[in-house]
Every structure is written in C-alpha cells, then in structure tokens.
C-alpha cells in the first residue's frame, strides 16, 4: 500500500524562494503533514512548518495544497492521484517567514482590536442563566480554531495589502457576530464592525465558508446576519437606546 510520493515544497524566506522536489515513502492512511514530517526526518531537517495537534484542533498547520488553502493534518494523501506530485506552498495572504511558515501577526492585531465581552447590567456576575438555544449561535463561531485559512482566501486582502489596515476579515467578522449574538453581552459593536472593521467591504463571495475546516457557515450565519443587523441599527435610531434584542429573528 505504501508508495513513493513526489512533493513540490516551497522553500525560501522573505527574500524569495522556489519549489523544491522531494520524494518520500508514504504509507496507507497518511496525510500531507506526515509527508512533510518524512521530508524533515529523512531529507531536509531544517524544513519549517507549523503543527501541534495533528487532528484538526489547533489550526497551526495551514498551507496551500495544490493551490487550495487547507490544513495539512486533515488532508489525506488518498485524495490525490499517487502518480501526480503534490505541491505545498505557504499561505499567500501573509508574509513568508521561512518555507511554509508565514507571519500571521495581522490576525493577532485584529484580535486585539475587538472590544471584549462585557456582561449586561441584568446579569453582571457569573454564574449566568442562559438557555442552550440562545448560546448556540455564538457557539458555532467559537468552534473557530484560528487556522486563518478564511483570512488567507478572502480576495479583499489576498492580493491587496493596501486593504489590510481597514479590514478585519471573516475570522473576526464572526468574532463580532459571536459577541453580538451572546445573550448576555451589553456592548453594541455593529457600527464599529461596519464602518471601521471592513464588514462593508465584504461582498459575500462565500469563499471563506468554503475553506473553513470547522465547517462554520461564516457567511450565511455570521456575515449576512451581521450586515442585516447593521442595516437595522442604521435605519432605526430608537434601537440605539434599547438593549440588544434577545430573541432574534431567524
């Protein structure tokens, strides 16, 4: 069942680089990350890549496999034709540090800009009472493993460095959505996310949803409802003075 796999891996750093060919023996059931580890152990000990859990839980091993943003640990070799080489390149939207490792600092900056969870005056102190149905929508977004594949794929920043300062990206749109839908959060971040965090720049192409390894419906459940809420807020000034609605329209 084992065979010799041909790989083309991008090697280089911020000053440039190229695809390098490797051939390594692989076994049944292996994933792309296993093949990269074989290269490290047998061919090139200084090949850089990130990984931790090897089970799709930590979001470290993001890369582009045959041009598609994916987790290396969740991409099975059996999905590919054994006769064809597999090409692995670093995420394109972020500056390369070395080989498959990119500088994802952009995302940590955007994370730090999010105004933190702030409990309501009704329930200022945990333990909170919150119904399961009311937490579920936010829970979907909290499944995010911060692999940043959606950020990598979003055309607003993928080849447009100039858009980065004003655009938080899909991962953070669902972070704002999560807080907005939290049944016990008091802050209103809708205007902020629309006007300063770039929600308005998203034109709902849904590419982010397609690459999300957690199958979070980023656009349908996060971005689109947020856009609708923003519209509500904009045209209904009375709502500014009300507390955030608890029961949401579906």
């Amino acid at each position, binding site marked *: 069942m084992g065979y010799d796999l041909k790989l083309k891996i991008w090697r280089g*750093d911020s000053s440039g680089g190229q695809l390098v060919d490797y051939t390594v023996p692989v*076994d*049944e*059931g*292996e*994933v792309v990350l*296993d093949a990269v580890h074989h290269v*490290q*152990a*047998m061919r*090139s*000990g*200084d*090949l*850089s*890549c*990130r*990984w*931790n*859990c*090897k*089970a*799709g*839980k*930590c*979001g*470290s091993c993001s890369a582009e496999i045959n041009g598609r943003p994916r987790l290396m640990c*969740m991409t*099975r070799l059996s999905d590919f034709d054994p006769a064809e080489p597999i090409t692995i390149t670093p995420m394109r939207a972020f500056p390369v*540090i*070395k*080989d498959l*490792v990119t500088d*994802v600092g952009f995302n*940590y900056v955007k*994370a*730090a800009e*999010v105004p*933190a*969870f702030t*409990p309501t005056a009704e329930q200022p*102190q*945990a*333990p*909170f*009472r*919150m*119904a*399961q149905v009311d*937490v579920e929508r*936010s*829970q979907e977004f*909290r*499944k995010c*493993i*911060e692999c940043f594949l959606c950020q990598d794929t979003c055309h607003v920043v993928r080849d447009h460095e100039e858009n980065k300062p004003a655009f938080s990206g899909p991962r953070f749109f669902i972070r704002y959505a999560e*807080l907005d839908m*939290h049944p016990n*959060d008091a802050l209103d971040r809708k205007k902020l996310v629309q006007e300063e965090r770039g929600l308005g720049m998203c034109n709902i192409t849904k590419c982010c949803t397609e690459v999300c390894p957690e199958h979070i419906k980023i656009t349908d459940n996060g971005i689109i409802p947020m856009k609708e809420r923003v519209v509500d807020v904009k045209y209904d000034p009375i709502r500014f003075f009300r507390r955030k609605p608890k029961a949401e329209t579906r």
Partner: protein
Amino acid sequence: MSDTERHQYDVIVVGAGGAGLRAAIAAHDAGARTAVICKSLLGKAHTVMAEGGIAAAMGNLWPEDNWKVHFRDTMRGGKLLNHWRMAELHAKEAPERVWELEQWGALFDRTADGLISQRDFGGHRYARLAHVGDRTGLEMIRTLQQRTVALGIDVFMECTITHLLKDGGAMSGAFGYWRETGRFIVFEAPSVVLATGGIGKSWKVTSNSWEYTGDGHALALRAGAGLINMEFVQFHPTGMVWPPSVRGILVTESVRGDGGVLKNSDGERFMFNYIPEFFKAETADTIEEADRWYEDKKNNRRPPELLPRDEVARAINSEIKAGRGSPHGGVFLDIASRRTPEYIQKRLPSMYHQFKELAQVDITKDPMEIGPTCHYVMGGVEVDPDSAQSTVPGLFAAGEVAGGMHGANRLGGNSLGDLLVFGKRAGEHAATYASGLAARPAVDEAELERASEENLAPFDNEDGENPYTVHQELQQVMQNLVGIIRNEEELSSAIKEIDSLRHRIANLTVEGHRQYNPGWNLAIDLRNMLLVSEAVAKAAFERKESRGGHTRDDFPMTDYAYWGKRNLICELSSTGEVGTREQSLPEPPPELAELLEEGH
C-alpha cells in the same frame, strides 16, 4: 552577550496553555509587570486539544455533589498518593474558576435551567464536567487568550526558554531564543512561573504534540528543584490505532461518559471482568445496572467502563494480549449501537469528524478501534500546595508540569480544573514574591555565555547524528521499556539505553541556519527529553509495587504499608545525573481522612 535582546519583568510565565495564561492574568491583576512566553503561537498550546471538560463540583445537575465528594473522588482516583492539600484546594476552588471563565465570555453547554451543563466522566461520582461539546479546551484557551489580550499582557510567541537563571539560590530570569530568527533573548525577572505542560513526546504512541518535550520539568531539575511522582505516567485507554499515521491520537473519554462501551473481538463487554477490589463497592457488576446508571445515579453504580483510566488501560492491554483484540491491535469502542446518530453528532462532533476524516469510519454507524496511548504525566515539580512555589525561591510551577495534585493517576477533567486553580495561585504568589524582595536579583553574564554556547553546539559538529533519528530511538526505548506494564529488567535496560543516547546527543549535527529551524530546535529539546526520561525510568525502577499509572509485573500488588506512605523525589546530582530519594507522604487532617473511607 551585551547585544542580546533584554527585557525586565516582575513575573515571567513560561507557557501559554491554561495554566500559564491563568497565571499571567493573576500576576497582572496583582499589579506585577508580567510577560508570557510560549513555543507556539498564542492559542495553540496543548490545552486547545482538551476535549471532555473541566471537573468542578458546581452541583448544577446533581445537588448532592460538593467539594467533599470531588475531593474524595480525586484522592481515590489517585490511589491516595495525591498531596491532600492540593486535592482539597482544587475541589474547593474549581467552581469559582469555571464561573470566572463564563464572566470573561466562555459559552459552556447549558442545562435545562440555563446553568452550565455537566457531563459524566471516569472516576467522578456525579456528572461534574463543565463542557462545550467535545471541544472544551478550545473554549477555555480562547477565553483566557482573549482576556490576556484585553488586559494588554505582553506575549512572546514562538520563543523557547532553554535556561533558567539564578542569583545565588534564587531565580533571576530566563534565557531562550526566538524561533523565527534563532536570536537569543534574556528575561530578567525575580519570579518565574513554569507552565510548560507535559513530557509525552518521548513515547512513540502518544496523544501529545512536538511541544511536550518536558522542558519545564528539565529546567526545574537543573535549577535545583525536585520532581515528585515521576514514575506515574498516564496511558489513556482510548487512542486511535488505525491508520498508523494517527495512532495515539486521543479519543475522548466523553464517548464512554455519554454511553459508549468497550467490547472485545467476541463482542463481550469485558470491563465487567476487570473490576478491582478497591472499586467494587462503587461499580456496577451487571450490564442492566450499568445501563440504568446513566439516568439514575442514586440507585445504581457506575459502569466499569468508567473506572479510572489506569484500570481501563490495563484491562484493554490484557484483552489484546489474550488475543481478543480488534483487527488492528486495539479493542472496540462502540457508541453507534447505543445512542442515536443525532445524539452522537451533537455531543461528540469533533470525534465524529476526526474518525470520518482521518480513519474513514462513521462512528454513528460503526464501532471505533482504540488502544492505550501515552497521554499525561502525573509527576512534576514539587510545589508548596498553597503558593505553587518550588523549593527554589522565585520558581513557581502550575498545570501539568507541577506534581502532587493527581497522585498516582489523574481523573479526566481534573487537569483543566488544576490549570485554573493552581495557575491563579501561582500567578498571585509569584507577584507577591517579586514585590516583597528588597533588591532585584542580578543576571550572571557568564551564565548567559554558557547557555548560548550550549545552544549553538549542534552547529559546530560536522558529521554528527541526525536529531530526528535519536528522537525516534528514544521513543522506541520509552515505548518498549517504560510503557504501561514494567519490570526491573526492562527498566534497568531503559536506564542504560537512555544513558547511551545521552552521550550520543553530545554529537548531533543540524542542517541550515538558526532561522525557524525545527532540526536545531529538536536538538535542544532532546536534552530535556533525555533528562526527563531518565527521571521517569529511575523512579519507576525504585517503586516496587503497582499503583495507578505505574504497573510492575514483577510487583503486581499495591503495597499500602510501605509505598502507600511514600513519594519519590527526583533531583539532579552534581555530576548531572538524576537521583531518587524517598519522602514521606503528608497525611490529611482527620476530617479529610474520614472522607476517604469506604461508604462516603
């Protein structure tokens, strides 16, 4: 060393898992200038992988539950070798720490009354684990990470600490390198909190990642602190076994907590044949009683599948050895025939995906194949229970790197609680210690020179060995000779093998440059792995009995009279070898001792 990057803090926390982040928040809240340092990106520490939940006796589903029951379960699960005071503090404080996460934005699954829901786990008398599906660790680390960022605490990501620095007998800081550039960095700080997690990457079949090289354990040993209970390594009963590349990846205990059962190749629920005397009174002995327990815990006893992990792992091992294993050398874990597909997908979504995507098994239709995997180290830095300070002034430890809390075996869910309770304590006490000093300790420049030379040595060797090869050999040695079942002969050959590997790592060669070079990083980590492996093997050699996560087939009985009253402490000798010393186990006060009796 004058051109090396330097920083001054009151408290530095090495590690950004649950324990490290909680410690940093506490130190910051106490007014200390605080930094967190971690090998991976923020949010990627092992804590992110925890699945099942956080054990805390909140009593949301079972009002009968309280800290006393949790204390008792923890001590009995640890085969009474726990430090009673740590188990007491943990049981008392875990609920507050969980509510604090909610206060900071965590969204746990809810009960019908809108409170935090709690789930069943092995060794816990009541449903006690606060959880979010089977991704509790993600919720916990994200919440703590978001809090850390909101408070503006400095985080040094992808930065590895290789040496602790001392001034006289006390801490003065730490030395390490940036993984991105390979450049060195010095932290000057009177308080250092170790929160580096575990050691499992020294075994071949493991649920642990590349980060688990025992750095904190080794740093503490070299700084002069003692490690306690190092012979106790937890092999989780349920790791994946097939395909080979995922062997060892964890299958959460929640599968059993939520109704899954273990079967052998004859289709028998074999755990009924392995109920030990110690747990007879509290374990169901018929299938009917076991199945009733999920709904009615008052009138029925717990199913044997939910015995503590050491018992279940040994039982699985025996079934496989007796030839009743599954096709790929495990046994079957079956929830498909016991719960509806909707229930399984709702409660265990990440297990569902893990099996579907990595093994092409649909767990709502077919049983899983599982076997034991190296998972957790009970042993760690010996600390004062209340302050989390080691015997070295200014050196604190919390989380998996600390020892004592779990005794000979950890109950599931008790680690996440441990991180929060002792992380907070360590951070607070580290801040207090730093602010109480009359003068700041100084960093010794000669020590920095030595540290930098040691770290760069692998670049100077021409035709040395490949660090990956040595690592694989170490994993093989630990797997074969210091595994679930041990004996004197194998342990003594392990000690010899480790010694010879130690000589070999003096002669490693690495390719390339210092920038983001995993080969070089591994060469440095290997020193820690070997030192910690030596401690495990030597402590395991000394403890001539079987208890919890330490089973000797040459001493199969638990020895209550002698070993039941002793911990082993590992320390570093002046020649750089690990030595062991017996230390008497602290006895609980009568009112707590009483809780441990049968029938409570």
